[in-house]
Every structure is written in C-alpha cells, then in structure tokens.
C-alpha cells in the first residue's frame, strides 16, 4: 500500500510539473498572439521603419526581420564550422582522454555565461580588429554565444553513436577520419540537425550579445560591414517608448520572432525524421 501511495504521489508531482511547462508555453504564445495579432500587418513584414516609426509613424520591421535572419544564419554557419570538428574530435580521437573531460567542463561553464558577457567580449574583439558595429561583428559574437550550446548538444548526440558502428568501419580498414565523417556523422545526423537549430533559435532570439556589436539601423544590411537591426532589439526599442500603438507593434514583432523560432523547430523535426531513415537502431 505504501509503495502504491509513493507511486501516486510521484505521478501527481510529475503530471503537475508537465502541466506547468505546457501551460507556461501556451500562456506565452497566447499573450504574444493576443496582443500582437491585431497589430500584425503585411506592411510590418515588407517595409522598413519610416520617419517617426517609434513614435507611432508608418513603416515596418523588415530591417529587423532580415537582419535577424542574416545574423542567425551567419552565426549558426560559423558556429557549425567549429562545432562539428570539435565534437567529432572529442568522440573519435580523444575518447576517454582527460582532455575531453576538460573541454566539456569548459563548454558547460561557457554555456552558463550570460549573453551580455559575450556581447562585451565581442565588443573587445571588435575594437581589437578595428571593426565598427556591423553584421560581421554581430555574427562573430552570436557565433561565440552559440558555440557552447551547439557543441554540447552535438557532443551528447555523437557520444550516443554505438561503439560497434565505429568498430565495424575500422574492421573494413577505414581510418578514424573516414569512420568519423562517413559513419559517426551519418548515424548522428538527426540529432546534429536538432542541435544546430537549437543553437539557431537561441542565437536569433538573443538581444544582449548584439547590443554593442551589430548596431541598429532602419535599413536592410547589404554587406557584412553594414550595421544590422535585429528583432530582439527592435522589440526592446518599441517597448521602451511611451506609446500604446508602438507597444502593440512590439508584441507583433515578438510574434514574428516566435514564429521564426517555431519554424526552425518544426524544420528540425522534419529534417531529423528524414535523416533518421538509415540510422541503426
């Protein structure tokens, strides 16, 4: 009887916790959609801010949408270039070497560092390299912010690739590099895509890391050296005004950002399912 009561208590706690998580997500989506949808107009998506936009004037936030997409894609691509070799090196070459544990510990610490610190660090690099606030500086900073997230997410996936697969490839005379790129990578691909888009979602939604580095402009960036507006900063500036109409547009902007992140998550799921076709289970 005591064991059964313990079971009931555990189920009740677990169900409540799950309900809290689900309710929080629904509440956030509902609040953003309810306040943002009425103000969401086609012109918001297609036009850049016109004079006095932040005082209630016309125009839209196409500059921030495009800036965020450029920044998110650029930073994620840059982070991927570093993350993928790192996680393969940790698994295939370092294995149980203490250095691998040290690298993982460092990445966990970096994951916990607030994004404003990455922003400040990015600003230091920017000054050192003689860059001004630009899309490139923003991309580098957001890539640094995404790196620990992406590597740790990918590392967990790559760690789960069965050792027998590596052994099977080695038994055919494959080198470690061939094993890593042709077997381990293929088996881990669905999880790697999820890790990639998780980092993209975090990168595109972060405001603090681009505050000093990407700048802000009413124009769509045409080169890496142009400053770039981002959706999180656009929301921040709109909410900072005293005008009710601009506040509602901020919620519409937040809705657009949420939809972008949801689309990235949906794409991750579709691609992961597609790449899982050949994985060994």
């Amino acid at each position, binding site marked *: 009887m005591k064991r059964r009561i313990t079971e009931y208590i555990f189920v009740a706690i677990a169900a409540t916790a799950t309900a809290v998580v689900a309710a929080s997500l629904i509440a956030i989506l509902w609040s953003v959609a309810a306040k943002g949808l009425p103000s969401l107009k086609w012109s918001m998506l297609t036009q850049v801010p016109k004079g006095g936009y932040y005082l209630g004037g016309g125009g839209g936030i196409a500059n921030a949408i495009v800036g965020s997409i450029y920044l998110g894609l650029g930073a994620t691509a840059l982070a991927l270039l570093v993350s993928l070799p790192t996680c393969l090196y940790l698994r295939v070459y370092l*294995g*149980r070497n203490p250095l691998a544990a040290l690298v993982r510990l460092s990445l966990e610490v970096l994951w916990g560092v607030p994004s404003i610190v990455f922003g400040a660090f990015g600003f230091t690099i920017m000054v050192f390299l003689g860059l001004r606030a630009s899309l490139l500086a923003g991309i580098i900073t957001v890539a640094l912010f995404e790196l620990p997230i992406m590597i740790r997410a990918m590392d967990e996936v790559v760690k789960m690739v*069965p050792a*027998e*697969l*590596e*052994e*099977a*490839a*080695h*038994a*055919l*005379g*494959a*080198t470690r590099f*061939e094993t890593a790129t*042709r*077997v381990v990578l*293929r*088996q881990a691909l669905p999880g790697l895509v999820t890790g990639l888009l998780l980092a993209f979602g975090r990168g595109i939604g972060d405001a603090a890391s681009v505050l000093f580095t990407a700048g802000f402009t009413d124009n769509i960036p045409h080169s890496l050296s142009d400053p770039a507006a981002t959706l999180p900063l656009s929301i921040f500036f709109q909410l900072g005004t005293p005008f009710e109409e601009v506040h509602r547009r901020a919620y519409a902007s937040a809705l657009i950002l949420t939809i972008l992140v949801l689309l990235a998550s949906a794409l991750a799921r579709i691609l992961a399912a597609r790449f899982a*076709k*050949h*994985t*060994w*289970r």
Partner: protein
Amino acid sequence: MKAHMTVQRLNLAYNNCPALKDINVEIPEKQVTAIIGPSGCGKSSLLRCLNRMIELAPGARVDGRVTLDGEDIYGSNVDIMDLRKRVGLICQRPVPLPMSIFENVAFGPRLYGAHGHTLKQTVESNLRKAGIWDEVKDRLKESASRLSVGQQQRLCLARGLAVKPEVLLFDEPTSSLDPVSARHIEEQIAKLKRDFTVVIVTHDPHQARRVADSVVFLYLGELVEYGSTAQIFDSPQENWTRMYVGGAGI
C-alpha cells in the same frame, strides 16, 4: 597444411590485468579454425589480436608475435588499415552501417577507390556469396537496418567479403540468431573456406564440431589444447578439454 597465420608467445593484458597468457597456435590456410572455451576465457580477445582490432579496446597491451604470411602484423612498418582489409572481422551482433543495403556493401570498396559499374558488380557478387542477393536485389536502396537480424548478419558478411580479405574472423556470428538463420551462416562459412582462411569464435562446441577443421580450446586465458576437430572431440588429451567438449562443464 601450410600455416596462413601463426601466433607465437602472445600475451595480452587489459590495464595490466592478464587476459591471454603465452598463446602459441597456427592457423592453417583455407581451413576453418574454431576457438572454443567458456565465457571470459579470452576467445574474442585472441580473435581481435589477429587483426589488431584489440588495440581499440581501452588499456589493451599486446606482447608477442602474430604473423600473416610470415610477416609480423605487430611490426612497426605494418599499415594497420591494410592489415584490417586483409584480415576481416564479422562481429557477434550484426551492425549494419547507417546507410542503404547497397551502400553497406559498397562502403569498403569505396574506401579503396571502387566506383561505377565495377562497384555495382562487386556489391552484387558479394551479396550472392553471402547468400542474400535473392532476398535484397529489389530493395538495394532500402535502409539496411530494416532487414531481419539474420539478413543483417549475412549483409555484414557480404560487406566484409567486399574488401577481398584473405582471412575472415567470425566472433560468435550466430549467437544472436535464430536456428534457421544460424544454419544459413554455418553453410556460408563451409563454402567460404574454399577461398578464405576462416577463424571462428564460438561458445557452442557442437557448432565447432560442425564447421571447423581444427579447434583451439582456451581456458582462463591459456591455451589448453589445439588439434584437429576429430582429435579434440573424439580423443582429447587434456582433462579440461574432455570435460568441456563432453558437456560436463568446467
């Protein structure tokens, strides 16, 4: 009978804990040699010493000499990838690579530069040799993981054969299979010895008797007895061997 491989004064330790002690044995060319013994006696470890796969095990240290066609495979100038191509390993549990049936068999030949029509022919001929062609010829693009376990094991055999090895090592190849699939594999092994030297690890003395020409009996990391299958099963010289093959248990 000419020895294809020889094992001389072989010792193996995992993190300084001995696993094989002073093993001396000859593997005859184009015959089936079975390594038998109770669980934990070092059968798989000895098998993996024959193509240096043992070096992938953490903490493994090998001491002694293993030759292939008279050349020491632990020599400093040996190309380990080439060695593993020449001495193939079929694992206990079938492990299809995360790709299609065709790509699984093509994986090895591709590493060595095969492509186009030659590659297609290689895939087909090795699927035939492994006795699985008729079952998969219309579904070569399907995922290999969708095959049954027995089919997967024969696919792994085709994949191993596709790199044209000289010696084939089987590590308990039927232990995860049903009796029908196991019989399939045994039949393939019997055919393979026409072209390959075969070494098979099995914990089943009856299987060793069915498929092997000579038998190595290991116990607690030591070689207890080595001889022809008839000698080991009909007139064993050692008491441990008599108890094990007689089914009395040790």
